[in-house]
């Protein structure tokens, strides 16, 4: 672009800013509605994106196959003997029993997960009387590394532990309500006999063999249920999609408001505005000059509102923990202590949002002008 063309656009921008100043309140309102819309949409999008990412992260560490025992249709403890049976199936690389369970903490009125770290979790090895806390619990209980933590078991017996560490997990959703303890402490806390586990975990050498292994294992263990990683993934997807759908339905209302706004702009060209366009043409503006001037009006408003809305949404979701959306989107959030999502941005989502707001708005600004601008300017002589 040469400098004359550039100066032409600068001049037209200058003019459009002066012209917008005249209907300051209307333009400010418009800007505000637009900004709120982008803010809400971007908040939902980046929040659900971050939560999905969390879920994916969590699942990437999940075992290929989890074995549960069902008694009367309910999840029950798995005896150690099961481990020997499935552990020898061809293709199973490793099999071990897991110990985990929930308990409700009266003091903080929250559910915690008590868990024994698996044999692979080298970073989390403990000796009797030690515990590692998720950062959510540490925050709620005001606990720090090296201090003592006491929790009361469902049987009323207290368990006293020294805090070895507080974990800052990659995934806030899974890690923050977690207390890691030794097997001995776990069994004592829940009053479990030896040789039983919450469930079993099978690590598989080749993920394509998962269904074959599940087939053989269910023959050997008729009362067991096998949950594969794909099953979990599907369940999560279903829950997230459903909640997202709900929220998007609510957002539809906001979008309708935006549409009305855009439509009002698209149809509302007063006699005064038409006359002005005629005057500009009569004094030497081309149709393209008028369109360029109006384009800048639409583009400036929508670009600024878009950027403002996106920045506000980013701050909302990642700095202020999505306070407005949490109760809706993260359905089981009440079960968990507070957590914060690590920031992540989906470029494609942002681009989509940009296209679906900036383009219609700018279009709605220009189209009626186009209709008025192609008419003969002679009318202003009358």
């Amino acid at each position, binding site marked *: 672009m040469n400098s004359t063309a550039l100066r032409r656009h600068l*001049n037209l921008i200058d003019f459009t800013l002066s012209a917008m100043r005249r209907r300051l309140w209307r333009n400010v309102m418009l800007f505000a509605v637009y900004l709120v819309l982008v803010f809400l949409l971007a908040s939902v999008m980046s929040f659900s994106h971050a939560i999905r990412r969390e879920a994916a992260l969590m699942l990437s560490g999940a075992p290929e196959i989890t074995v549960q025992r069902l008694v009367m249709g309910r999840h029950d403890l798995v005896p150690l003997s099961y481990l020997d049976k499935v552990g020898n199936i061809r293709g199973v690389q490793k099999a071990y029993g897991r110990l985990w369970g929930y308990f409700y903490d009266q003091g903080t009125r929250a559910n915690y997960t008590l868990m024994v770290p698996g044999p692979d979790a080298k970073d989390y090895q403990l000796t009797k009387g030690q515990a590692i806390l998720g950062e959510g619990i540490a925050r709620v209980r005001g606990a720090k590394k090296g201090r003592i933590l006491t929790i009361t078991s469902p049987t009323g017996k207290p368990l006293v532990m020294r805090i070895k560490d507080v974990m800052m997990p990659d995934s806030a959703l899974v890690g923050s309500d977690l207390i890691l303890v030794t097997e001995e402490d776990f069994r004592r806390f829940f009053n479990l006999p030896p040789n039983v586990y919450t469930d079993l975990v099978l690590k598989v050498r080749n993920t394509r063999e998962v269904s074959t292994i599940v087939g053989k294992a269910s023959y050997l263990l008729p009362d067991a249920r096998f949950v594969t990683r794909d099953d979990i993934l599907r369940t999560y997807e279903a829950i997230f999609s459903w909640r997202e759908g709900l929220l998007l339905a609510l957002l539809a209302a906001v979008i309708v408001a935006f549409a009305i706004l855009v439509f009002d702009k698209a149809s509302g060209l007063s006699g005064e505005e038409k006359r002005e366009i005629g005057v500009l043409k009569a*004094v030497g503006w*081309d149709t393209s000059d008028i369109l360029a001037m109006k384009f800048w009006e639409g583009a400036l408003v929508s670009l600024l509102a878009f950027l403002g809305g996106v920045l506000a949404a980013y701050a909302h979701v990642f700095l202020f923990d999505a306070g407005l959306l949490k109760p809706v989107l993260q359905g089981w959030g009440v079960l968990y202590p507070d957590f914060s999502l690590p920031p992540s941005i989906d470029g494609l989502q942002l681009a989509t949002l940009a296209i679906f707001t900036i383009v219609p708005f700018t279009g709605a600004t220009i189209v009626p002008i186009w209709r008025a601008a192609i008419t*003969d*300017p002679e009318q202003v002589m009358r």
Partner: protein
Amino acid sequence: MIELESVCKIYNDGQPNEVRAVRDVSLKIPLDATTVFRGPSGSGKTSLLSMIGCLSRPTSGRIHLEGECISGLPEKFMTDIRRRTFGFIFQRFNLLRGLTVMENVMAPALPLGGDHADLRHRAMEILHRLQLDHKATVASELLSGGEAQRVAIARALINDPAIILADEPTANLDTALTEEFLGVMADLKQQGKTILMTSHDPRIWQAKLVDRIVSMKDGAIEDVLEQSERENEKE
């Protein structure tokens, strides 16, 4: 020289409300003279002036400016000729409400891509010549009638056009302001501008700066009076 060749303007051509505003006008307008079109309301003066100024196209016929046909062109070229050649002073001034005097005066020059600061400077100079510099930042709707017209004149001059077109310029002015307007026009004539006006105001016809009077009736030209003949008319 502007040359009109069998120019017709028909509004709503072929419809029941058809109006033949200008009928078969052929006329030569010299650029070194000030010409006034006079005639009763509805005689087609404004329509003719619009066509000359490239604001509208003749229904038939041609208009030449210095030998170049300017009547049958696509919009882009028409606009280009309009903004480089003509400055308009409208009967109703047509200032943009809510914008300042300065912004109004600068408006016609903005799409030409000149430097904004230069443009302001030029606008200020013109406003100064018209004794309006103290009003530069005033909103245009707060001006008196005479001031509004001087702003309209300033706006017409910003692109330094060779030809000034004024449609009924004194229709809304009292005698003193009319004198003032004629003074400004005389200055512009002095600077070599061509001035074309329409008017049914005798104060304009009798003005010293007017060289030719073209009388119109029902869309056609009745007669053309040269300055010499006007001397006789006065007696």
